[in-house]
Every structure is written in structure tokens, then in C-alpha cells.
């Protein structure tokens, strides 16, 4: 390579002096990754759908999580639910940018993480502050049956401007799936208040058809009017190396969570297409 007129101080390495924007250089970095927590499940507990739906819905889920935690290690993520939606609407009305809305939403999810943490405290599971959560996660998982975090990824003021509108695109489902991918977790389960994915919103149309299993490419082709999870999950799956699927299950029957953790197919599986 002609470097005679390059006089920068380089350290010798595979990538030294190379542009990290060069396509061939990038392709050379595509190698397998280590799985940090291969026996741990990431379970996202929906906020509007479960955690804010009242004790009749929440307490059976908490009891079931307590049972599961006797055998399995769980990373429990929660979202900001209705309060995040409200703060978005006030923030939008005040003309605040997407990055500020993302920063604000973290507080609501943290609140919900503490609610779930209080309920699961008898099982030795508490909410971990986001500042230390990622770095200490393997330690917590080794020492406790599970941990709770606010699912909001730490994008905050650095949130990406979305293609449409101003709502932060990396929300709590996304935070849970990227975490699972980075730590190489065993499974990712989203617990909501629908059986899974339907051709239409089943709450609005009783004739909506259930989708048992679908790939990202098929789902993009279906172009459904709404999705019961963050649209960003599709992009995350498309580039995933370790977490190649997630399952959406109905938490109104908490048994579903236990079965999904065991690897059973009880809701809708969304999976990455073969590369």
C-alpha cells in the first residue's frame, strides 16, 4: 500500500492507518463473537400492557417470575409506559427535540423498574441503576437469581432523529434486544397483553389473524399498519450475530412466560432471515 506520503503516527495493528469507512476493511472484521451470558434469558415486561394494568394482572406475573427465578437466571427489562407517552406529548408541545424526549423517557422506565424491583425483592431481585448495570451485569447475574433494568438504551441526547416524526426510535424493546445480542443471552421474550402478532390489531378487529412465526423479511413485506413492539427490533435482528429471534408472549396467562423460558413456542416467534 502506498504510504510514502502518510506521516501520521500509527500504532501497528490490523486496522492501523486504514479507513474504518472502507467497505473491504469492514468486511474483514466479520468474525464470530464470544457469548458473555449464554444461560441467561432477557425478559421484557411490558409497561402499558402488564405493569400498569393493575394488581390483578401484575401480581400473577410477579409470582410466576418468582417461580422461574428458582431455576433460571433472568434479566428483566421494563419500559416507561403511559408516563413516557405523556412526557413525549408535553415535550413535543414545547418543541423539544428527539434527543431530549429520549433523555426524559429514561425516568419513567426507571420508576417502573423500581416498582417491579420492589415486588420481586423477596426473590432477591432488584432494579440496578443504569450507570453501573452494563459493566457489572455478569457479576450481578453470578450473585443474584436475576436483575431488573430500565430497558431504555442509553442514547439520551444522542438518540437518532427518526425517519418519521420525532418519537425516539430506540425504545425499551430495543434496549432489551440489543442487550441480549451483546451479551449473547439464551433467549429474548417480550411479555405483552396480546397472544402475539396479528394481521391487524386484535383489540380493534376481531377478525384479525394470528401469526405464529414470521421472519423479518416477511414481516417487512406484510407492512402491517402497527406492530406490538418497537419497529427498530427488525433492524436489530437483521444485523444480529447471536440473538437471531425473539418471542412475543401474552403475560395475562403467566404460564406462557415459564413455557417460553423453557424454549417452548407459545406466542409469536420473529426471527432473522439467513444471511
Amino acid at each position, binding site marked *: 500500500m502506498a504510504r510514502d506520503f502518510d506521516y501520521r503516527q500509527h500504532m501497528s495493528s490490523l486496522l492501523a492507518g486504514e479507513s474504518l469507512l472502507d467497505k473491504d476493511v469492514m468486511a474483514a472484521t466479520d468474525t464470530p463473537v464470544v457469548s458473555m451470558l449464554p444461560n441467561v434469558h432477557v425478559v421484557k415486561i411490558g409497561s402499558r400492557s402488564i405493569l400498569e394494568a393493575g394488581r390483578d394482572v401484575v401480581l400473577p406475573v410477579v409470582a410466576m417470575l418468582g417461580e422461574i427465578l428458582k431455576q433460571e437466571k433472568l434479566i428483566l427489562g421494563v419500559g416507561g409506559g403511559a408516563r413516557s407517552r405523556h412526557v413525549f406529548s408535553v415535550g413535543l408541545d414545547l418543541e423539544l427535540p428527539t434527543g431530549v424526549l429520549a433523555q426524559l423517557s429514561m425516568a419513567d422506565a426507571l420508576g417502573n423498574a423500581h416498582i417491579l424491583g420492589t415486588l420481586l425483592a423477596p426473590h432477591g431481585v432488584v432494579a440496578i441503576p443504569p450507570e453501573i448495570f452494563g459493566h457489572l451485569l455478569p457479576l450481578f447475574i453470578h450473585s443474584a437469581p436475576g436483575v431488573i433494568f430500565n430497558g431504555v438504551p442509553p442514547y439520551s441526547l444522542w438518540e437518532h432523529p427518526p425517519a418519521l*416524526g420525532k418519537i425516539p426510535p430506540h425504545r425499551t424493546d430495543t434496549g432489551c434486544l440489543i442487550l441480549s445480542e451483546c451479551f449473547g443471552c439464551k433467549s429474548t421474550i417480550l411479555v405483552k397483553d396480546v397472544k402475539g402478532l396479528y394481521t391487524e390489531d386484535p383489540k380493534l378487529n376481531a377478525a384479525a389473524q394470528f401469526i405464529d412465526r414470521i421472519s423479518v423479511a416477511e414481516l417487512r413485506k406484510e407492512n402491517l399498519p*402497527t406492530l406490538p413492539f418497537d419497529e427498530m427490533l427488525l433492524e436489530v435482528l437483521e444485523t444480529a450475530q447471536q440473538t437471531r429471534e425473539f418471542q412475543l408472549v401474552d403475560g395475562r396467562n403467566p404460564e406462557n412466560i415459564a413455557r417460553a423460558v423453557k424454549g417452548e413456542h407459545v406466542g409469536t416467534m420473529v426471527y432473522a432471515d439467513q444471511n
Partner: protein
Amino acid sequence: MKDTLLSELGSALVNGSLTDKSLLAWTDHPSTMRILPAANVIKIGGQSIIDRGRKAVFPLIEEIKTNLPHHKMIIGTGAGTRARHAYSVGIELGMPTGVLSVLGTFVSMQNARMLHYLLADQGIPFIEPIQFPQLPLYLAERQAVIFFGMPPYTFWQPNPKVGRIPPNRTDTGTYLVSETFGTRSMIYIKDEKGLYTADPKKNRNAKHIPRVTVQELKAMDLQDLVIEHSVLEMMENAKNTRSIQIINGMVPGNLTRALNGENVGTIISSD
């Protein structure tokens, strides 16, 4: 019962789906404010400037000091060759993208600290993401701050489409500060005049491009780019920062001229 506490949009947001396209389109109104419209975001390249040492850095620091009375500057730093070393070691050992992102953050933080000491006699602070609430105060009092350019995504850095290197690095992190705060300019200081048809360090026949749109740039499908791809993607969706400039910081006076609104390198615009 009508909920008088919520606006119509508020009620739609609380009850509706955030994947509903008509609801998302609604959130585009009203417009987006500019939080710091008088400030400029400046990114100082890691490999291109800081790794060169005093020869490149000292004149630039002097030029920043000269401009302090006239311009507010939010100064972000790149990572450079040590990040490439860390990425190389990490990739070989199987580190996932999120861990590589943490490693890149450490290197851009070292660079920010070094520049911070060189500007310390001006009372300019180095701020980490957690200190961004103090940014407006420091700009009002001292005209400038230094921050590390990596976005604070750590383990939540998304995988790239190809390979494993974090796709959102210091160009992106500094860009997003400009976009979120609605600054008057976003200037990238590198060691080339901007964008060329090929890497001018490897190909002497590469031609300079003074002005280009994101669309045109995508259509050119260059093998290599002077700016991270994610910046281009974000520029297409941007509310505030729809134009950026890349300048050669090895030429004295370029930063001053760019701060004064001149095109001395390459201007990339959203439309």
C-alpha cells in the same frame, strides 16, 4: 370522560401505538426548537489531527483560542489509531460490537482530556455525557467545552451492517450533539480538504468535491468516505443540522474561515 389534562396528540400517544405511521407523522408538529442556536460543534479528528502530536494540535489550539471571543464552540474529539489497535485486538478475541464501543469511548476520552489540558488556561471544562446539563452555563461563561465524541451507547451500540466495528462513532456522536442542540454549524476538522472521489492518502489522482448532497453522495457509492455513514443517514432525517462542513485543520486559518461561514472544504447537505 374527556381527559382535559391531555392534548389531542397527548391522548393519541398515551392510548395509541408508537408504530402507527399517522400518529408518528403527527408528532412532527409543531416544529423543533434550537436549544443553542449560537453555538458551533467542532470535531477534532483523532487519527487525522491528534495522533500527529504538536505539529497539528498546537496551531489548532491557538486558532481555537483566537476564536473564543467571537464564537461559542462545543468541541468533540475523535479516537484514532489507538482505537484501531483496541478494535483489532478485540475483534481477534471475539469482542461484540457493544464492547468495542466501550473501548472506542476510552480512546476518544483520552484525546478529550489531552485537549482539555491544552485549553485549561482558558477555563474550558471537559464534560462527560452526565454533565451535559451544565453545557449552557459553560458556554455562557467560558464560550467552549470539550467532550468525547463517542456517543454513550456502550453495550447498546447496534451492530453494523457489515463487520463488527461500531457504526456510530465520533463523527456521529458529535453530529448528534449538533442536531439535538440545534447549533449553527457542525464542522469536522480532518487532515484533508474534505471529500474526494477516493482516499487521497492512497490515490494521488483523487478529485476534491467542494459541495455535495447526501443523495448525490449515496448515488456515488464510494468505496471509502471521509465521514461515517450513519451521519449521512441521520442527516436525511435531521430537523436542525441539515448541513455539515469538513475542513483541513492542517491549514492555518481554515477553522476561522469555516466558523465565519465560508466553505473551505466540503459541505455536505441534506437537500
